[in-house]
């Protein structure tokens, strides 16, 4: 029995080492903490309003290098799978809103962007790296956690989204 408890810890640890859900962060299978954050026009966007939809939550900042590469890809995801019901919510964690706005001028987003300058949401989600992304299924459970942004993993994540959306 003892042995078994330890082994589950091992699985969790090896997952953390691989960047697929942290040992202390929101993990696959869990329901992530709720949030209610303003978008650029000040309207409140909540995670719960997308219940029933496949949702991709991305934490980003203007100063984060890989985030610059992830935006064009998320734009492409939105174009390809938006009509199939995919929702992308990008949570900005810049302390200064102006920094985020300058980033968005350079690399406009065609998906929802919300702002959390206080960093409450990444703290609640225990975000492990910048950027970090969470793929959430229609039941509100996390099905994948991506820490960092790697070209080599784009295909895998897209395939995962496709399978959740049942897009052949």
């Amino acid at each position: 029995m003892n042995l078994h408890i330890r082994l589950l810890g091992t699985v969790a640890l090896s997952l953390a080492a691989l960047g697929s859900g942290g040992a202390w962060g929101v993990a696959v299978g869990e329901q992530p903490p709720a949030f209610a954050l303003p978008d650029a026009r000040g309207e409140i966007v909540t995670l719960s309003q997308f219940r029933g939809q496949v949702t991709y939550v991305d934490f980003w900042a203007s100063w984060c290098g890989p985030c610059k590469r992830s935006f064009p890809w998320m734009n492409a995801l939105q174009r390809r799978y938006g009509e199939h019901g995919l929702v992308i919510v990008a949570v900005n964690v810049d302390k200064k809103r102006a920094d985020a706005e300058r980033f968005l001028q350079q690399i406009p987003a065609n998906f929802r962007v919300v702002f959390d300058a206080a960093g409450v949401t990444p703290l609640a989600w225990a975000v492990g790296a910048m950027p970090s992304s969470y793929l959430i299924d229609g039941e509100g459970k996390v099905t994948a956690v991506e820490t960092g942004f790697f070209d080599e993993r784009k295909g895998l994540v897209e395939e995962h989204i496709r399978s959740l959306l049942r897009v052949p």
Partner: protein
Amino acid sequence: MFIRRSCVALASTIAFLLPGCAAYAPPYPWEKGELAQPQMQFDADALDAKIGQHIYTSKEAAAGGYGVGGGGCGCN
């Protein structure tokens, strides 16, 4: 011999420097915006650092501590 003398000097200097350090509170990943600014990097302007080190090598006895393997010059 000279190493031992150096170590004594080092130890006394450590004691002198430590109180200057800020409180230790490592940031979360999403709090590293200020650390990402170029002025917070060591040697963000590589040429500036190289030029400065080269000039001081030609003026003073001391050189080194910033890295390994720079090309030398006949200036010392």
